């Protein structure tokens, strides 16, 4: 009996373990993304950000989570209780399930699906049900308006994002996420350089899709208080928050996999750049050194301890990252792609998220009709032109035996990129100079 169970579970053992790690770590990670966001925001706004809970606010996410857990659970009297209860769960589940098909490294992937990308996009957009249902169940004007805005926005931008993804898929020739990275490794080029416009379109569309500023209309606090989350409080609210940050990580991961070479090190196949293998280790050592340097300067003994703990954590990570670089044989040497792959993947995801935050603190918010106009009149047409452009470039580049023309890759890419840019410029010019005055129903 036990034997049978073991045999049944053996192939699923590692995926289950990974899934457990993701479910356990993701809320923590999301919490620290929030801290990162607040720190980046503080830096851009000439202030310090959270500094009180833990050294440099390092324990703030944990304090926040505890506070949210202990808050009173309020369900408005006129709300539809079951749906109100279900909606945030739906949102957060969709985000987490989408993570299953993401390759965090050549080994660290829960399910290597052959339609991985399609799966992520499909499941990811299920999250909108949570938002719409939550807004509807709250039975409040602000929530309803927020939910409707969210639904309209997601539908509009999903199209552009999908088209941008298609341009990457054309280049990769597969929907399998791990395979996409392998193709980029074999061709020695990340797809961001082959389809720069595709990447840019995906960047914009993914910001809109995750409801982040400057497209954060569903939760525009100065207009709709908190949008669909207005009536939510305590842990249900935290679940929505978690869903939002999970979605951010998911879209950043898609972009990393598709356009930024996934887990690959920069210049992965060039021997001269092998010194980059030391970068992860040195980075961790730097953080550890800085933490140790700051530790005596903390005002409270417990904060000194936390700072030292952070330093040792970083030292440990540095050791893990260093081991396969120096010992190239045996078990430890075999860790190399897994450990370093995960590092580079998360590093790229971090940079992508930083761009999200940077844009958020720089730009004012779009108005709803402007958002729709940008989506339908600019992003979608350009993304369609871009798909054709990338397809043509791919065709021209293909060798003559396989039915192509054997062009130089960069010549083909330059040609089609210029054509796409011209189309974009034409669209921008066409959309400019809207008639002044109030928006009327006819102009919608």
């Amino acid at each position, binding site marked *: 009996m036990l034997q049978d169970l073991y045999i049944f579970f053996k192939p699923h053992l590692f995926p289950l373990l990974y899934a457990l790690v993701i479910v356990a770590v993701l809320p923590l990670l999301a919490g620290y993304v929030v801290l990162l966001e607040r720190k980046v925001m503080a830096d851009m*706004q000439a202030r310090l950000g959270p500094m009180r809970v833990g050294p440099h606010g390092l324990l703030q996410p944990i304090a926040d989570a505890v506070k949210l857990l202990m808050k009173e659970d309020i369900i408005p009297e006129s709300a539809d209780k079951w749906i109100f209860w279900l909606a945030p769960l739906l949102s957060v589940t969709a985000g987490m399930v989408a993570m299953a098909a993401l390759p965090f490294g050549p080994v660290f992937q829960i399910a290597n699906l052959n339609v991985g990308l399609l799966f992520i996009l499909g499941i990811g957009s299920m999250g909108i049900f949570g938002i719409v249902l939550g807004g509807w169940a709250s039975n409040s004007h602000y929530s309803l308006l927020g939910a409707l805005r969210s639904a309209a926005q997601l539908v509009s931008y999903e199209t552009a994002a999908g088209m941008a993804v298609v341009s990457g898929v054309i280049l990769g020739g597969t929907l399998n996420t791990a395979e996409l990275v392998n193709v980029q490794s074999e061709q020695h080029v990340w797809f961001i350089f082959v389809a720069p416009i595709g990447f840019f379109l995906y960047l914009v569309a993914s910001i809109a899709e995750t409801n982040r500023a400057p497209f954060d209309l569903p939760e525009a606090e*100065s207009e709709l208080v908190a949008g669909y989350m207005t009536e939510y409080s305590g842990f249900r609210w935290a679940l929505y928050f978690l869903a939002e940050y999970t979605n951010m990580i998911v879209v950043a991961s898609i972009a990393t996999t598709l356009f930024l070479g996934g887990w690959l090190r920069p210049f992965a196949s060039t021997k001269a750049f092998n010194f980059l293998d030391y970068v992860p280790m040195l980075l961790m050592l730097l953080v550890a050194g800085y933490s140790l340097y700051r530790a005596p300067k903390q005002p409270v003994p417990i904060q000194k301890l936390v700072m030292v703990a952070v330093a040792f954590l970083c030292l440990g990570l540095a050791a893990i990252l260093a081991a396969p670089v120096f010992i190239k044989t045996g078990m430890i040497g075999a860790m190399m792609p897994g450990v370093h792959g995960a590092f580079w993947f998360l590093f790229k995801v971090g940079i992508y998220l930083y761009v999200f935050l940077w844009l958020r603190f720089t*730009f*004012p918010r779009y108005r709803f009709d402007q958002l729709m106009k940008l989506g339908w009149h600019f992003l979608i047409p350009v993304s369609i032109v871009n798909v054709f452009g990338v397809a043509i470039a791919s065709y021209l580049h293909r060798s003559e035996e396989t039915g192509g023309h054997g062009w130089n890759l960069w010549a083909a890419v330059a040609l089609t990129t210029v054509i796409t840019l011209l189309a974009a410029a034409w669209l921008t010019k066409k959309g400019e100079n809207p008639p002044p005055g109030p928006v009327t129903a006819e102009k919608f």
Partner: protein
Amino acid sequence: MNDFLKTDAREVDPVLDHSVDVETTVLGADEIIINMGPQHPSTHGVLRVKLKLDGEKVVGSECIIGYLHRGVEKIAEHRTYQQFAPYVDRMDYVAAVSNGLGYCEAVEKLMGVEAPPRARVIRTILTELQRIASHLVWLGTHALDIGALTPVFYCFREREEILKIFEKYCGARLTTHAFRIGGLQYEAYDELEADTERFCKDFETKVDEYETLLTENRIWIGRTKGIGIISAEDAIAIGATGPVIRASGVEWDIRKAAPYAAYDQYKFDIPTGKNGDTYDRYLVRMEEMRQSSRICLQAIQNIPTGPIMARIGKVLKPPPGEVYHAIEAPKGELGYYIISDGTTQPYRVRIRPPSFVNLQAFDTMVKGHLVADVVAIIGTLDIVLGEVDR
């Protein structure tokens, strides 16, 4: 027009007007009524706006004020002239110095005395600094309403410097009570000129910094151009003043039209707009900040010496009569109408607050726009509810 005016005000539910059945209009019919405020993050205080929406389009609006009414004008009738002076600071609490200047000058005019030249110049410097501070609060909150999170911190960083100057001068930062009837209570502190000069010189680059973030920004232009248009005729008909009327192209500034304090001695321009939209009001206020700093730099060059207080008695008994005196506060024409019956207390004080009058433009501006523009328009009017409700 206002249904609560027709009936007893006490019978109107402050939360939601039950004459509209919300349940049946949410999904079925075409218009819904949304109640914005008095507790809303972007109504700048306790303004309550009832919006009639067709989808997201505003088809009708009604401003309901009075949530911050403290009866300042009535209080004046039971205080001596000097005792009432600190109360005016609490009206437009982001521009307390300007309020005080208007009141002190009004009483001086009533009594027929004039503040000595030194007092007038110091008053001008502090009032212009206050104008910058008030515009900085406006810029920060207005940008925040439209979704730009960062400018507000830059604005408050500079405002802090101004408040430090106030603190050094009179000990208070917000409700300063900086001036007295007849002149000043305190002599200028030693580094007033140096502090002001340092601030004004720095400030030139700081305004450029704000403009880099917003002026050329496509999203900012999209959110403000063509929003909340009010024509010059409408603005005049309503009685709008300050940046609101100047952005519509009317060159009206009391500092030029009827100079007070020491404004006749300094060179400055009146910026005007053309379209009377939110973007023009933004540009006008940005330029006003530059002009204010220009006035300050001129004023500190030559502060006359001499007394800071006119010769008036300890007990103020203005002759019976009435006076109206207006100044150009940061938000527009701030007027004091005072009737004296010859006693130590005013018989009647009527205050003409710029925010209250400008707020009347709201209905005209907001019609046909979207919900998101409502907050932009409230922001661009630069109202302070303490002054609207008094």
